[in-house]
């Protein structure tokens, strides 16, 4: 558990960080909370020659509402998400999901941006940001560009973030009134990744589901957007049958890898179960 030699850089502005990235190219890795990168370095699975620590860049942290959009700095810690009165009120799903990540020590250091850009389907924010239809603001030498969460994740540990780019902000629209949401996560113990998890955002019009977003964590090479499951709910009253149909549709797109958490059959079944539970819970919150 001893990393190989690397050089440590601690820029204090985004432009400084970008110029370091430009200078060291493939030999550099960005350090956010470090809870994925540092263990990989200690095991020497990752051996970057240069580590660019983003923790001193103040402009990358913080949560604010601007022009009807909630803007979250990529280096905002999970604990800061959980403690944010703004998020508790306007995007409670993000608060609920962050609370289910690992343990307090990890949440104090771990950041939303690090969680997203690592591209690990076991991380929670990929599914959450897709469910919230978030936009990612990426900044590179040529300026900024915006990518929808749904288009960002390309494969396990592969994202649309280019080697010379940094994720700057996450933009999310606040929930409309009477939106209900839930994140149901099955895990073996505190600190573990999900065996399977489902995020649901629901809006009801009377007894009828008017809109639904359903996404899944850790049951495929990337976070999955269960669109067929959404269609099984929209335009209908919420019944045991429609919930079962949505769960079946969610299970149909699962492609999990077998590991010590369970085999493919179990993980797929749990994705269905978590979907059911999250739909029911979200529905009770549509007030």
């Amino acid at each position: 558990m001893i990393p190989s030699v690397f050089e440590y850089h601690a820029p204090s502005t985004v432009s400084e960080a970008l110029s370091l990235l430009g200078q060291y190219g493939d030999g550099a890795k960005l350090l956010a909370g470090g809870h994925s990168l540092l263990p990989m370095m200690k095991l020497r699975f990752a051996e970057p020659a240069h580590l660019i620590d983003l923790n001193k860049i103040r402009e990358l942290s913080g949560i604010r509402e601007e022009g009807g959009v909630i803007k979250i700095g990529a280096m905002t810690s999970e604990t800061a998400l959980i403690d944010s009165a703004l998020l508790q009120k306007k995007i409670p799903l993000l608060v609920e999901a962050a609370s289910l990540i690992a343990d307090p020590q990890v949440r104090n250091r771990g950041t939303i941006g690090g969680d997203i850009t690592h591209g690990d389907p076991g991380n929670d924010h990929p599914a959450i940001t897709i469910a919230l239809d978030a936009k990612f603001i990426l900044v590179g030498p040529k300026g900024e560009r915006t990518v929808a969460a749904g288009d960002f994740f390309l494969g396990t540990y592969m994202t649309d973030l280019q080697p010379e780019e940094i994720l700057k902000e996450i933009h999310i629209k606040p929930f409309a009134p009477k939106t209900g949401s839930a994140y149901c996560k099955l895990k073996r113990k505190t600190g573990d990744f999900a065996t399977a998890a489902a995020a649901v955002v629901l809006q009801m019009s009377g007894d009828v589901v008017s809109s639904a977003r359903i996404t899944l964590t850790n049951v495929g090479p990337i976070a999955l957007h269960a669109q067929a499951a959404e269609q099984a709910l929209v335009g209908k009253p919420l019944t045991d049958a429609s919930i079962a149909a949505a769960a079946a549709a969610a299970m149909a797109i699962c492609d999990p890898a077998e590991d010590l958490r369970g085999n493919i059959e179990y993980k797929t079944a749990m994705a269905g179960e978590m979907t059911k539970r999250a739909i029911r819970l979200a529905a009770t919150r549509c007030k």
Partner: protein
Amino acid sequence: MNSPLNDRKAALMGMGDSRLRKEDARFIQGKGNYVDDIKMPDMVYMDIVRSPVAHARIKKINKEAALAIPGVLAVLTADDLKPLKLHWMPTLAGDVQAVLADEKVHFQMQEVAVVIATERYIAADGVEAVSVEYEELTAVIDPFKALEKGAPVLREDLAGKTEGAHGKRYHHNHIFTWEAGDKAKADVAFSAAEVTVKQDMFYPRVHPCPLETCGCVASFDPVRGELTTFMTSQAPHVVRTVVSLLSGIAESKIRIVSPDIGGGFGNKVPVYPGYVCAIVASIVLGRPVKWIEDRVENISSTGFARDYHMTGELAATKAGKITGLRVNVIADHGAFDSCADPTKFPAGMFHIVSGSYDIPAAYCRVDGVYTNKAPGGVAYRCSFRVTEAVYLIERMVDVLAQDLKMDKAEIRSKNFIRKEQFPYTSAFGFEYDSGDYQGALDKVLNACDYKGLRVEQAAKRADPNSPTLMGIGLVSFTEVVGAGPSKMCDILGVGMFDSCEIRVHPTGSAIARMGTISTGQAHQTTYAQIIATELGLPSEVIQVEEGDTSTAPYGLGTYGSRSTPVAGAAIAMASRKIHAKAKKIAAHLLEVSENDLEWEIDRFKVKGQDAKFKTMKDIAWAAYNKPPAGMEPGLEAVHYYDPPNFTFPFGIYLCVVDIDKATGETKIRRFYALDDCGTRINPMIIEGQIHGGLTEGFAVAMGQQLTFDAQGNIQGNTLMDYFLPTFVETPKWETDFTVTPSPHHPIGAKGVAESPHVGSIPTFTSAVVDAFSHLGVAHMNMPHNAFRVWQQLQASGVKS
């Protein structure tokens, strides 16, 4: 007792007092002194090159690139150790173990070479730079396959040896066959039986996983010819003897120190290759060498526990009276038989397997087998192989009850060794010292409203909409601890006594030095309490030291719940020697005959005359100032205690679980643990020990397992996968007790730290299986994690 007497007694904070742990002040302030805290001038660092494969021939080890790194001082391989005859070392079980892989590797993560460097980071770079060429061989992971006719030969160094340390070897991968009990008598019981049941069960390979991993700082002084080694050892005196035998250095010139130890649980009993290599490196370089393993190394290569494939059989009458027991075990010992077994039996005290029951005929057989897995077989928070034994008998009693459609509590009552039968000699020859099993069972059943629980369970089973299955586990275990009587126990020929040296200082404070070593048990607190009560001196002024072989009397260390049963007895006996001398001094000072004196809490007084007395403090002063004519001055004593028998703590545990029909998650709704550890020295510390043991039992039963793939790659060797429960997962524990003192122990104490581990594991299984018992399930193997329980839900057709 009137109030002044009570006050005097309370002031001693002796036995029965829940005084706070003396150790905690330094631990909670970060002022402990662990091996990795030790820094010595000129110290260098060692790291280990380990095998990436489970079974292979070593073609070549290339050191050059590593030696070229500035700061790398040496790279040692088996070839470098050969001239010293240290490339192999003897194990406690009579086998040999490679210190560094000699021509072959036998398990993944085996030690192949060591790199010594001026800095820890450089040592790691050196490890990466050593390249080893392997020719891979077929790995054998399953012990049953290891015993097949054409199985690869794992231990080529034993080729042609048909006799091992424990008798005949019938196959090249076979280590020993060990039998206990009376086979013929048991066979008769089975052929005459009205009912028989049989059950296969696997007790998985687990790891004790202490928070502090293993390590040492070895420092050889070439000028004085003296070796000092600080190490994470539960048995420093034994290590000193082993090091002396291996190195040829006189035992008097070797000092082994176990400083603060961050948990042992059996994992820190063996002598590991890392220690030996660090010592050799220090001798070669003439500088202190530090080696501290990381978590992956600790879980992957150091002493595992269990890995027993067991088959149990019970013969019984239709009314549920057990008439016979047969047990057959295939024991997977890994690549070398280095199990840390302090008894004369290769399966330790597995023959306690008749449990708390009066079984007239019993027989067990254990066959040890080599596989391409890490060696070990340590007693993980238990006496050696007792956890496996208790698991087997408790499971079998449940299996029999289910077969007979009899209640779990009822069948136990029917078969208990009754109170009036003690001392009771079991069919395997153990003499159980004392117990009251029925009294304890009744107490637990009443406390938990057992009948009410069964009513609730029946209602849940009848309700198809119930989201959970409810299970009730019940276990009535007996442990055997306090190794042990020298007729049954030894380590490398040294008897399993333990020792205590007490010196009372002139002003009435004292120091006690012990052959044991606390790994968290709070010996400094509880040992002082025994002396306080025995000698009438306040425990606050009694210092307890242990772990340094240069200052402590020889002892066999701490494991198998032996500290209180053995060392605790040595303390009482040494105290009584001092007490006897003190009485003579008191008689002299009071100018009366010894027969005219009586002892009262902290003083000798002239019988019937409260005002004529000498306190122990007065006597201590006199011992150094004006002892009676002809008596040598001073007030001290040493005692080496060879126990006449083991002690037999017992308990009744009840557990209620609710299993989620959809996810397979098991919620421990209630866990009630009644323990009888005999005389209780510090109730608060006992409570803490029980909480810790129950939590480790919960970990084993519900989540811990070291698994391997077909190539012998170890799975889940980090704390991400290996289950160490945090307080979030840990159930709430309810504890209770009865007190049945040991009749042969000087203070009646039996030992407690391991009972909750031994007793709780089958309780969890009993509860989980009970949830499925109405569906015809009689047994489920551990761990009962959500995935595995879900598979049973599917197999049993349970709909969520």
